[in-house]
């Protein structure tokens, strides 16, 4: 018997739970401003999530998926991207969308039930969030294929959850990306839960990163609560993809501290003790600790930031709440490039039924 293939999965972390470096930091992390920008983006995300949940609780927003405790994944991923790259998020990456220029008011409009929220004023080519789990992985491959055909040095970055890795779409997408060496990076936002299904019941595989092995692409793991590690590992994968060296699957290990969505009650299936323990690993405290250990972050800085974030989020919420309603006929007006004659009658009916 001879061994014909083997694999190893590497795990990367730079900061331990108390924010102390476990190895020399990557070059970008030597720059205080860069680290502070990452920190601010995570705090803004957490402030935004809290506001969105409270808007939902008070009947002013629809169902919402908080990213509490997972902020480092989308923020680290988006920070590693260039403006001209294309982001294809799932539905828990608002922190990354915001960093790429999606406005908070747009995210609120979307979850508030208004399609205009996906007509981003910022990153015009980024995909809207994807609700059918994992079905956007093929889109990322299509986008990357477009970049390759045009010879553009751009990368498609697709984020999906641990649950999504059990779907065929994700495998089919990685498989083709491998065959074509497409400029795409897949990131698993492994928050340990798919609603009530724990990671262990999702697959018998030891890591989700190794799902890349069957597709013939590199699979690596990163501490998803260490934003420096996410930014570094995903950044390296993105730059490899940009250089024509093909796709990568990055598994970011994090933890969903919130309910699945505002429509969920995680206490039905999850121990509070587990959640409390995981609070010790969350990414924001860790980076703050690191910054203040280095004398780069003071109590005043923190207070100023909290104030800034609240002001920004409150302004977005006010703008959201003051947005004039959608015209009812818009439900038909954007379906096709031009309204087919067959739909004219239905459009007239909508108009008539909703006339003031």
């Amino acid at each position: 018997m001879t061994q014909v293939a083997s694999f190893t999965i590497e795990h990367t972390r730079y900061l331990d739970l108390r924010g102390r470096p476990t190895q020399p930091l990557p070059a970008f992390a030597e720059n205080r401003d860069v680290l502070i920008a990452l920190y601010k983006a995570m705090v803004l995300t957490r402030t935004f999530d809290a506001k969105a949940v409270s808007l939902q609780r008070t009947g002013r927003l629809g169902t919402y998926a908080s990213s509490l405790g997972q902020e480092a994944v989308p923020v680290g991923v988006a920070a590693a991207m260039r403006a001209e790259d294309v982001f294809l998020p799932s539905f828990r990456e608002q922190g990354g969308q915001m960093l790429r220029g999606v406005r908070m008011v747009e995210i609120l409009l979307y979850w508030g039930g208004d399609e205009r929220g996906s007509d981003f004023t910022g990153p015009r080519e980024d995909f809207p969030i994807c609700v059918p789990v994992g079905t956007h992985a093929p889109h990322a491959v299509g986008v990357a294929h477009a970049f390759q055909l045009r010879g553009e040095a751009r990368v498609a970055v697709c984020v999906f959850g641990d649950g999504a890795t059990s779907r065929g779409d994700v495998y089919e997408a990685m498989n083709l990306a491998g065959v074509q060496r497409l400029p795409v990076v897949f990131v698993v936002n492994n928050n340990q839960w798919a609603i009530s299904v724990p990671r262990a019941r999702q697959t018998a595989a030891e890591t989700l990163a190794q799902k890349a092995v069957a597709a013939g692409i590199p699979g690596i793991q990163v501490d998803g609560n260490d934003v420096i590690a996410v930014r570094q590992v995903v950044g390296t994968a993105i730059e490899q993809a940009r250089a024509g060296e093909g796709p990568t699957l990055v598994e970011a290990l994090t933890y969903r501290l919130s309910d699945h969505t505002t429509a969920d009650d995680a206490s039905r299936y999850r121990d509070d003790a587990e959640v409390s323990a995981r609070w010790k690993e969350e990414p924001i405290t860790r980076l703050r600790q690191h910054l203040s250990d280095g004398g780069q972050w003071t109590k005043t800085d923190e207070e100023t930031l909290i104030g800034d974030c609240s002001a920004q989020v409150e302004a977005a919420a006010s703008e959201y709440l003051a947005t004039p309603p959608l015209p009812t006929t818009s439900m038909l007006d954007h379906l096709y490039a031009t309204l087919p004659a067959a739909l004219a009658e239905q459009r007239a009916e909508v108009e008539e039924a909703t006339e003031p």
Partner: protein
Amino acid sequence: MSEITLVEAVRLALARAMEEDETVLLLGEDIGIDGGVFRATDGLIERFGERRVMDTPLSESLFAGLAVGLGAQGFRPVVEYQFMGFIYPAIDQVVNHAGRLRNRTRGRLTCPMVIRAPYGGGIHAPEHHSESMEALFAHIPGIRVVIPSSPAHAYGLLLAAIRDPDPVVFLEPKRIYRAPKEEIADDGVATPLDQCFTVREGRDVTLITWGAMIIETLAAAETLAAEGVEAEVIDVATLKPLDMATILSSVERTGRCAIIHEAPLSGGVGAEIAAGLANRGLVNLLAPVGRVAGYDTVMPLPRLEIYYMPTQERILRTVRRVLAYA
């Protein structure tokens, strides 16, 4: 100008579209060097290269999603599914993404893609190779469902589908892939979508059909003509969105109508047409709407296939009943 078959007309349209627009790409299984299982893409990889004629892995769920990504990036992908029986994984992408991307982004991102697949029975193919499931797609908002019934229509409608800014499911009746033939000027002129075509004029009864059933329907019309009955024959061509106006105006003149399709009877496009007639054409109807269709059963294997497919005799039986109704 020589006579060509429907499948050759498909190839001619694909080549024409690729010639005139760099962004048109072909994707599918075995479409490259092998030219596709029905040879619809024969020779295209030699002409346009493997960048534009791409053999994909066996990933039916993937292709349609891949096309969504390419479409959103400004390409015009044309995806071939080998048989309609293997298209179902694509429904997820068509319903959840292709048909709604324009709407959910208010036009910021769009999906100008075409999904092509041979469909229908009558060629004694193996299991899963003969179904007519066009109604599954015709129910989906935001897309077009187009079925040609002749080489000329295959050429013109496929060009229109590829140039259309929205997703189109283009189903090719494989029973008439190789016959009859027709002369086609490769002039790049598209045939309009969203429109039914009156392929035979008549004053006594309207026969409505699409795809390969046009053959039996026209034959029935000839038989009736010999008996002094002039049937008008309408080829629906674009099943979604449906041009009821043409159908209603024909029935307004004839007062009688039969709908003929290979797909199972219930819950399909024929039912939609009948409902449209009941809704808006009832005053003109002199007889109940006749229907000739496949049965509401699993498509039989080849031994019983001919008993499933609507025949000229079945059409005539129904039309005569419609004509006799006083």
